[in-house]
C-alpha cells in the first residue's frame, strides 16, 4: 500500500479534529475532536514506521512503540477530561464552552477586588435562591 493513502487519511482526520476543537461548543464534542487529532497522529506514526522499516536492515519500530504510549496517555487524558466536564456540568448545569469564561479579564476596572465582590454577591444570590 502506498504511503499516500494513510497520510491523506490522517491529514483529513486531523483537520476534522481541528475543526471540532475550534468550532464545537459542547465540551464533550471538543474532547472527542481532540481524540480524532491524536488518532490522526497515531496513524501517521504507524504508517511512517512501516515505510521506514522496509528500507532499514534492523529497526526497533519506535514509531509503533510511541503509538502505544500515546494511546495509553490519551486514555488517561480523556478520563480526566470527562471527569472535569462532568464536575463542571454538575456545578453549572451546562458544559457549553462559550459560557465557561471565568478567566476572562473584566472590562471596567483592573484589580481583583471588583471580581471578588461580584462573585461574593453572586454566591449570596445563589444562597438566597
Amino acid at each position, binding site marked *: 500500500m502506498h504511503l499516500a493513502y494513510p497520510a491523506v487519511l490522517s491529514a483529513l482526520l486531523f483537520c476534522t479534529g*481541528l475543526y471540532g*476543537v*475550534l*468550532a464545537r461548543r459542547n465540551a464533550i464534542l471538543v474532547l472527542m475532536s481532540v481524540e480524532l487529532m491524536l488518532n490522526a497522529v497515531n496513524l501517521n506514526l504507524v504508517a511512517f514506521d512501516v515505510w521506514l522499516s522496509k528500507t532499514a536492515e534492523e529497526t526497533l519500530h519506535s514509531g509503533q512503540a510511541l503509538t502505544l504510549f500515546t494511546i495509553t496517555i490519551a486514555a488517561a487524558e480523556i478520563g480526566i477530561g470527562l471527569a472535569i466536564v462532568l464536575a463542571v456540568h454538575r456545578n453549572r448545569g451546562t458544559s457549553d*464552552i*462559550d459560557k*465557561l*469564561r*471565568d*478567566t*476572562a*479579564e473584566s*472590562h471596567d476596572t*483592573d484589580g481583583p477586588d471588583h471580581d471578588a465582590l461580584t462573585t461574593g454577591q453572586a454566591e449570596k444570590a445563589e444562597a438566597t435562591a
Partner: protein
Amino acid sequence: MTTTTLAALVPLLPFLGASAGLLLGRTAPGFVRPLAVVPTLASLVLAAVVAVRQGGDQAINAATELTPTGSVPIELALHIDGFAALVAVLVGVVATCVQIYSTGYLREDPRYPSYAALVSLFTSAMLLVVYSGDLMVLLVGWEIMGICSYFLVGHYWETPEARAASIKAFLVTKLGDVPFLIGLFALATDAGSFRITKVLGTVASGGLDHPTLIALLLLAGVAGKSAQFPLHTWLPDAMAGPTPVSALIHAATMVAAGVYFIARLLPVFEASQAAMIVLAVMAAVTMIGSGLAALAQDDIKRVLAYSTIGQLGYMTGALAVADRGAAVFHLLSHGAFKALLFLAAGVIIHAAGTNSLAAMSRMSHLRDRVPDAFWTMTVALLALAAIPPFSGFFSKESVLGAAEHVATGHTEHAPGAAGWTVLIAGVVTALLTAAYAMRLWLLAFRGRGAEAPDHGRQPLTMTVVLWVLAVPSLAVGALAYRVLPDWFDGRDLAPTLTTSVLGTGMALIGGIVTYAAWRHTTSLAARVPLGAVAAHPEGDAAQVEAEAIASHAPVYGGVAYAPDPADPGRLLLGPLHRPAAVGFHLDEVYRALFVRPVQGGASLVRFLDREVVDTYVRGAGALPRWLGIAVRRAQTGNVQTYVSALLAGTVVLAVAAVLVAMGA
C-alpha cells in the same frame, strides 16, 4: 618619656576615654563616671608636665607624615610654645572641673554616658587644636569641637529651644567655617605647607602673595567660632544646653579657639593693615553691643553669654593691636573666672528653680541657700568687672595698655586707628561690664520677697570645683603678669597707670550707677508679682534647668525678656532696652537675609521635584500601564480563541520555516 610622647598623649587620653565611654555606656554604667573624669584628669597632669618641661623656652616641634597626600603635605605635627602649653593647662583644668561638676549636676540624667563621652571628645579636640602644628590637623579638631557643641547644646532635645539652638549654633559657625577652609587652602598654597612654622617663616620672608584676602577669609571662621560680630548670634541661644557645657565649651575653651588661632598666626594678620583694622572694628562693635545686650537680658545664663562675647571682644581687640601676649593672658584669666561664673550660675538655677533674674529678685535669702556659689560668684564677678586685685583686672589692663601703646604710636606692628578704636571701645565696655555684673549680683542675691525654697545642700562635687576655680580668679593675676612674659613674646604685661585709673574708674562708675538705679527701682518689685519656678524642685539640677528653660518663653513672653519694671537695666538703657533684649534685632536681619531666601529656594526645589520630575516619572509609568490594558483585552476566557491564535501562529511559523528552507 620624652616631652613629645607626653604631649601626644594629652589629646589622646580624653579621646580614648570618650570612645570607651560611648562603647561601655549602656553595658557597664558603673564605669561611666571614672571613664569621664580619670582620662581628663590624667591629661591635665600630663599637660602640666609638658608645660613645666617646655618652660616658655624654645618651641617644641615634632612632625611625622603618615602618608603622602599630594601637592601640599599634611603632617601630624606638634608645635608647643608657651602659648600652647599654658592654654592646654587651662583647657585641662576647666575640663576636669566640668567633668567633676557634671557627675553631680546630671546625676539622674539617663543620657549622662553619652554626655560625658561627648565632653571628653570635645576636650580631646580642643587639646588637639591647641597642640597641633599643622593647620589641617588643627581644622580636624576645630570641626570636631563644632559637632560636639551641636550635640551638647541639644542635650535637652525635648525642648524646642534646645533643638533650634543646636541647629543655629551649627549653621552659623559653619557659615564662618567655609571661608575659613578656603582661607586655609589659600594660605597653604602661598606658603607651600600646612605647617605653622613654615607658614610663619614664609610670612617673615614676605612670601605671602594675598595677605588681606587670606586674613579676611580666616577672620570669618574666627568670628563664627569665637562669637564675634556679626556671627555671634548663636552663642546666647546656645545657653539652652546644660550649664556645665556652657561653662566648658561656650565660655572657657571652644569660643577661645578662634582667638587662640589668630594668636598663633598673628604675623599672617599683621601682614595686612586692612585685616587689622577690620579686626579692631569687629572687636569694638562686639564689645559695646554685647555689653548693652547683657544689661537687658533676663536669663542669668544669657547675661553671662553676652558677657563672654564681650570678653572675647577684648581678646580680639588685643590681637588687633598685635599683642598676642595680652590676648592669651586675658584668655587664660577669662577662662577661669567665666567657667566659675557659669558653674555657680548652675548652682543658683538649681537652688532658685528658675533661670530668670526677675524671678530671683523676688526671692529673699537665696544667698543663704547657696553660700559657696554666692561667695565664688562674687569673686568671679569682681574679676569680670576688672576690679583690682582680681585676675580680670590685670589681664584687661594688659589689653588696654597694649591698645594705648599702639594708639600713642609706639609700635609699627599695628595701625594707630586700630589702637584708638580698641582703647575707646575697651574703656566704654569696662563701664558696661561693671554695670551688668553689678545688676546680675544685685538681682540674684539681694532679692526681696518670699523666701527662696530650701532644697538642702548642693552636691559636694558641685561646690568644691567652684572653690578650685575661685583660686585663679582671685589670686593668679597679680602673679601672672610678672611670670607670663617669659612664656609669651616677652612683651611687658604690667598694667600702666593711665589705663588702670581710667578702666577701674569707669568700672566703679558703672557699678555705682547701677546700684543707684537698683535702689530707685527695687521698690517697684513688690508691686509687680512675677515669676515661675520649676515643677520638680527635688529633681537633679539638669532637670530643674531644662524645665526653667522650657518655661521661660511661655511665662515671660521671650527667652531673653521679662516685663519687669523693677529691673535697673530697664532704667539705665531707656528706649534701648527692648532692642537690646532681643540682641538688636540681628536675628531678624539674618532671617531676612539668609533664612527666607533659603526657605524660598527649598520650596522652589520642592515644587520642581513634585511637579516636574514626578511628571516624568509618572509618564514613564503610564506607557507600560496602557500597554498592559491593551494586552489584557486579548484575554477573553474563551479557550477556542486561544487555540485559534495558537494555530494561526503555528501556521505562520511553518510557512516561514518552509520559505527559509526553500531559500526564498
